[in-house]
């Protein structure tokens, strides 16, 4: 290129090479369009085997997506759980009901506390008696052994750490014998969900690798099928990128189709579950509704599918095309 320029008057050489570049760019674009159209046509020409490939990829993609949609919904559900945490303050036995009520009022004024409910020792004893069936035995007692109890609901904006700090502070108060945080179940749920998320990630990663391998194999077969054609194209001067292009597009179409199938499968499953879940939510008087991946989610699936398709095709093409040389 630099030699061509020095041979000619400067301006002419530059404009010539620019015209050539523009030409080459147009030719490149033209071949992309052609490859895209031809490979799509090839894919559609064999609807049955293409559908199989789409289904395999679609299902492999739908599994991790479906699982993570389920987890998202579970997380949504646990977040909506009414009064997720509560601190039980067991007061010293020498704190009487009036003092307890006073403390309750004081606590309720604090910004960190949403609500305080006083369970007086007499109420507690009566309730305990009624529930346990030991009412007569308890009536015999001279002294009520139960302490006054304050049920403290932390302000909703507090996260778990803040709630724990609040518990520690409450525990240090004079009148408080013990502050107990009732959130172990929530922690368990959260760690279960965390575990679930990790498993979905692992399964998802495995399935993605699987998808790439499946596509790689499909493209390898396509390359085998068209071996003679590749040889001839190379004989008349087709470069490796030229030969590669239609196969990359084939991979892209398989991947995009697989992504669409995955979107359909996930949405169909959600639609299928929507009724029973709604019914359940109504029974629990909750406004909960299943949330799907939505249009953006499906679009993402299609893009991911397309990228995986390209990756698989690239794998096959880089391994098998170079090995085909005209003999």
């Amino acid at each position: 290129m630099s030699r061509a320029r020095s041979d000619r008057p400067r301006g002419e050489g530059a404009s010539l090479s620019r015209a050539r570049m523009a030409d080459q760019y147009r030719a490149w674009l033209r071949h992309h369009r052609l490859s895209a159209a031809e490979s799509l046509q090839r894919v559609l020409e064999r609807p049955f085997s293409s559908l199989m490939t789409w289904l395999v990829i679609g299902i492999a993609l739908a599994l991790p997506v479906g699982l993570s949609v389920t987890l998202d919904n579970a997380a949504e559900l646990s977040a909506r759980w009414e009064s997720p945490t509560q601190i039980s303050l067991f007061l010293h036995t020498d704190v009487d009901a009036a003092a307890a009520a006073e403390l309750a009022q004081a606590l309720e004024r604090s910004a960190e506390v949403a609500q305080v409910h006083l369970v007086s020792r007499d109420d507690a004893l009566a309730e305990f008696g009624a529930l346990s069936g030991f009412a007569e035995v308890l009536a015999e007692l001279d002294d009520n052994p139960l302490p006054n109890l304050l049920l403290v609901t932390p302000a909703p904006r507090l996260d778990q750490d803040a709630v724990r700090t609040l518990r520690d502070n409450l525990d240090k108060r004079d009148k408080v014998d013990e502050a107990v945080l009732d959130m172990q179940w929530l922690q368990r749920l959260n760690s279960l969900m965390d575990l679930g998320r990790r498993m979905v990630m692992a399964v998802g990663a495995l399935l993605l690798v699987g998808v790439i391998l499946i596509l790689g194999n499909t493209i390898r077969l396509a390359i085998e099928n068209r071996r003679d054609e590749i040889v001839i194209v190379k004989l008349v001067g087709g470069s490796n990128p030229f030969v590669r292009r239609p196969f990359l597009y084939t991979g892209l179409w398989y991947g995009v189709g697989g992504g669409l199938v995955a979107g359909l499968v996930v949405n169909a499953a959600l639609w299928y579950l929507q009724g029973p879940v709604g019914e359940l939510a109504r029974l629990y008087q909750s406004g909960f509704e299943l949330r799907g991946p939505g249009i953006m989610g499906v679009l993402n699936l299609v893009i991911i599918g397309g990228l995986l398709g390209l990756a698989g095709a690239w794998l096959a093409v880089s391994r098998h095309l170079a090995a085909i040389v005209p003999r």
Partner: protein
Amino acid sequence: MISFERVSKRYPEGHDALREVSFDIARDDLVFLTGHSGAGKSTLMRLIMLMDRPTRGKVVVDGRDLSTVSNRRIPGHRRQIGVVFQNHQLLFDRNVFDNVALPLVISGYDHREVGRRVRAALDKVGLLKRERAMPVTLSGGEQQRVGIARAVVGRPKILLADEPTGNLDPELSAEIMQLFESFSQVGVTVLIASHDLALISRLRHRILTLREGRLVTGGLL
């Protein structure tokens, strides 16, 4: 345009297909290459289009020593050469038009230019009416002419033809040879491998004769 300097080619099986072959072909020459079956004619052409590399010696095409052409540059090299293959090498799932258009599509010509040039090439080999036909529905001679049309459609600098008239009757053979001659008259270097001694001796062009891989006539002294 094409020069061989003491070129030898030994196939991995140990067979010497070419031995110390030297010759020069000028730019607008038309040269015949002849010799018994297995003499090395196809091998010689394979070296020119870089389907193979020589075991020893130097091949220079259009001023470029082919040993300096990297594998990545081979496609570009081949696009300057039109080749008629001994075994046609047609795409059997594409029609005649698409077969002939292939070199133009590879070079990135636009749609209209492709149509114009393909029809001109098909016209030259007398197959204009068969452009929509599939190769399997054509006779051996017609397939051969499709191969010829594909070789010339890109207006290459060099034309290699390996037995281009093997399946053609004498009349058609003479016509095709005339077509090749007309190319050499407009500056294309033409090298034709052929058994048909009667035909090629009538045409009064230089003849290279190979015998068991050695050049016995027409080379450099």
